[in-house]
């Protein structure tokens, strides 16, 4: 029963073949057994989850309608606000923070009758690519516990890979869903900017952040998209549904895209591991075998993506994180001499190294006299990258590329070299700058048995097609069915 997909489980619960209580119990049994090794969760809610499961079961037994996730155990990245438990962002500054409201996506999950198992670990404030920057705990890769799960949604991807929930939510600012999904061998989708409400997602880089599903299968990703997408009046940047209607992502999922044209960027794989490149080439062969054509896409500005990203994201972060000051909530230093010390000491004590580094970078980029040279220039680069994608998509349905230049790396391997760590996002960052959707799906393993992900990108609001393209591959291969051996 452990390895049912979320959709399979949902159907079994809805038809009364399995109860939500049973399924939830099994999840918590696995958590008791495996979680001490994996460390995916910052908090779990067993009592609340069992109560919700029982309530859903009762309704189903009474023949009443249940939501789209009727009793499926789900995990949430701990940077989304919940009225239950804490919302820590894996930061000491919010270690005891209880949010007074639910994020819009949390409300949607609850309305869909999801059973919320717990809140997962992340790099502090989603800043990182390995979940090692968590201020609260270490998460490991379920495929090799000496390695990182990727990040920043490493808790969510590890939880899904290890069977500690059936699906999860992550957030992706520069690759934070896709990269850990790739490293953990699960499916991770970053939707178009504006497709999912950000209300209640603790902001890192507001113009780049987007919530998305982390799942075992492409089909589950479609199921989750049916629940979490939609315009939200509380989020001015969420797109109205007249401009971009929301389809039923499951409805045509199994219809292959005919005469599929795949764009590739052959020059854009420098520094990538040979085995990873090979796996991607094999995946393209599978598509060719299904009748797809491959063409070369020109993306002249991709090389500048990382530079632009680290200016824009850190600039926004420096401003977004200024509210954690010890005055209104969160950690406050013990004995300040004046209010300035409340700020300086509280922040110095509770923020981690990487968060401080990015706040300083961003503050510098926004300072008068530097604004034009950094922030404004980065916005121009962002525009050029966006145009690169628009032009490229004139000639193809999708672009395929690597997710990560390597498979999961050793814990501690890149911690002393932030630049090297930043480069692990080289293939994912441009997607956030352009605001388009991207998915990572399992497409093989290296000789160490570590999973490899294939990244597929489509134009904005093309998630339905993106999922169909991903599904074509999933139906031809078994990579997604392999599970790590943790027992």
């Amino acid at each position, binding site marked *: 029963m452990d390895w049912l997909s979320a959709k399979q489980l949902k159907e079994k619960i809805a038809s009364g073949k399995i109860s939500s209580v049973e399924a939830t119990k099994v999840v918590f049994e696995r958590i008791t057994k495996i979680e001490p090794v994996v460390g995916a969760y910052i908090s779990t809610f067993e009592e609340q989850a069992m109560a919700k499961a029982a309530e859903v079961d009762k309704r189903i037994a009474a023949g009443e309608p249940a939501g789209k996730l009727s009793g499926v155990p789900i995990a949430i990245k701990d940077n989304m606000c919940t009225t239950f438990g804490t919302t820590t962002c894996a930061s000491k500054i919010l270690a005891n923070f209880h949010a007074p*409201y639910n994020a819009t996506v949390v409300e949607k999950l609850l309305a869909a009758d999801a059973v919320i198992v717990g809140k997962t670990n992340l790099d502090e404030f989603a800043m990182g690519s390995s979940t090692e920057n968590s201020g609260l705990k270490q998460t490991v890769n379920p495929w090799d516990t000496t390695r990182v799960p990727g990040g920043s949604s490493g808790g969510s991807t590890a939880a899904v890979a290890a069977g500690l929930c059936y699906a999860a939510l992550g957030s992706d600012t520069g690759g934070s869903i896709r990269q850990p999904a790739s490293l953990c061998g699960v499916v991770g989708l970053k939707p178009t900017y504006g497709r999912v409400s950000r*209300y209640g997602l603790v902001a890192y880089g507001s113009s780049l952040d987007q919530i998305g599903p982390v799942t075992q299968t492409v089909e589950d990703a479609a199921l989750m998209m049916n629940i979490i997408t939609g315009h939200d009046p*509380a989020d001015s940047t969420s797109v109205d549904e007249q401009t971009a209607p929301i389809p039923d992502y499951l409805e045509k999922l199994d219809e292959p895209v005919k005469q599929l044209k795949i764009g590739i960027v052959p020059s854009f794989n420098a520094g990538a591991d040979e085995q990873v490149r090979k796996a991607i080439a094999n995946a393209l062969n599978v598509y060719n075998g299904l009748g797809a054509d491959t063409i070369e896409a020109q993306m002249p500005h991709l090389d500048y993506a990382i530079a632009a990203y680290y200016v824009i994201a850190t600039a926004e972060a420096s401003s977004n994180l200024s509210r954690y000051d010890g005055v209104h909530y969160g950690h406050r230093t013990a004995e300040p001499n004046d209010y300035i010390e409340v700020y300086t000491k509280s922040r110095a004590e509770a923020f981690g190294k990487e968060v401080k580094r990015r706040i300083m970078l961003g503050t510098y980029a926004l300072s008068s006299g530097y604004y034009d040279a950094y922030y404004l220039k980065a916005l121009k680069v962002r525009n050029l990258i966006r145009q690169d994608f628009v032009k490229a998509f004139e000639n193809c349905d999708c672009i395929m590329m690597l997710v990560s230049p390597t498979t999961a790396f050793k814990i501690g391997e890149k911690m002393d070299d932030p630049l090297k760590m930043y480069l692990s996002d080289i293939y994912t960052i441009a997607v956030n700058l352009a605001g388009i959707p991207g998915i990572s799906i399992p497409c093989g393993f290296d000789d160490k048995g570590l999973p490899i992900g294939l990244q597929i990108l489509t134009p904005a609001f093309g998630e339905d097609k993106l999922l169909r393209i991903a599904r074509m591959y999933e139906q031809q291969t078994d990579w997604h069915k392999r599970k790590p051996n943790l027992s």
Partner: protein
Amino acid sequence: MNKVDYKVLVGLEIHVQLCTRTKMFCGCALGFGEQPNSRVCPVCLGMPGVLPVMNKQAVEFSTLVGLALNCQIAEFTKWDRKSYYYPDLPKNYQISQYDLPLAANGYIEIPATNGDLKKIRIRRAHLEEDAGKNLHTAGNFSQVDLNRAGTPLLEIVTEPDMNSATEVRALAEELQRIVRYLGVSEADMQKGHMRFEPNVNLVINRGDGQFKTPIVEVKNLNSFRALENSIEYEIDRQLDQFLETGEVMEMGNKSTRGWDDAREMTVLQREKEEAHDYRYFPDPDLVPVRISEQWLSEIKSRLCELPLNKQIRYVKDYGLSDYDAGVLTADRQVANFFEASVAAGGEPKRLCNLLTQVGLKLANTRGCSIAELGLSADGVAELAKMTEAGEISASAANTILEEMAKTGKSPRALAEEMNLIQKSDAGELEKIVDEVLRDNQKAVDDFKAGGKKSGKARGFLLGQVMQKTKGRANPRVVAEILDKKLS
């Protein structure tokens, strides 16, 4: 000794609190004097994960003021974050407008000292959110009340076109009338709805050349009196300081002073203007605002004749004194009522007397506006007509107006009921005059003797007639008869 003459230069920054239904970026109601932190929500508290949603009414109100101040209204404007740390600012940035203000390049006309109008140029007007309040109570701690946080403020900046404290006050009062006319602010000084920050310096001409004194900004004045007095004080102080030290304006020697109400003097707050770096950048949580032609013309349709124009027109068209015209135009509802009464056929001066001597007093005692007294413009016009026609005396008209406000009855019904219709029947009055002349032979003799006593005697006789008729005789008719009989 050299002869010294000088010119005063004052520019003004004014913060006007708008009377919108809700705060600038959330659904909280505006408040004053409530329990601290009772008008707050996650958004105006700056909780993690919240997003602002723009208040459209605030944009419309501000646009209306911009139009009234003859400004160019931006077709495209946006929101910027202004960063600074202060405990009353929950996010540690204020959402404001930096380089693209909603309105710019306008002017306001104020009454000049010589009786003419003077144009003061408006540099810009932009919309922003207010901060909360720090409460420094007993003990070695402070408290923060965030009820005011997020209240919409319109910041208006003038050019340094004012040359005296009187002009500054005139502008402030004129602006108060305008925003009240437009219904966009209560402009209640006691509640801090208008706050002023004048920039003052002098251009001094002396035998040995022209000198400019360093600019002083006086912070946070919230009464017309403090505004006027602080500028008067600054003029004297700056002149004295110049004569003593010879210090002139140069880069970086602008200083900030506060107004000490008790001691009636400005007090130095910051010697040198600090090199503030607010690190402005566009708020990624809000979308830019486009003010379409259609929207603008819809807002334009809500404009009305401005108070100063009305005041001038009342003097010119109705022959009212400048003072009376000022009283009638101080409040839009009073002016509207007056104009409706004029339109209903009342003689303007007569109406002015009725409304200023009785109407406003009544409204004041009842604590309501003149429109809420239960008077109709038609009724008041009728009352004025009756007075003009000599049917009732001016003092009777005042009495009737009071009764109209109490009972809602028509002026004619009341005049009859109260027996206040004047006797104008010449035959009847002639009899009474004859009686009086017969009974007061001494006065008749005095009159006929001429000289000093003559006028007094006539007045006495007239008074006797009025007494006999219990004040209901038309004095004009009585005088005519009397003069005829005595000649």
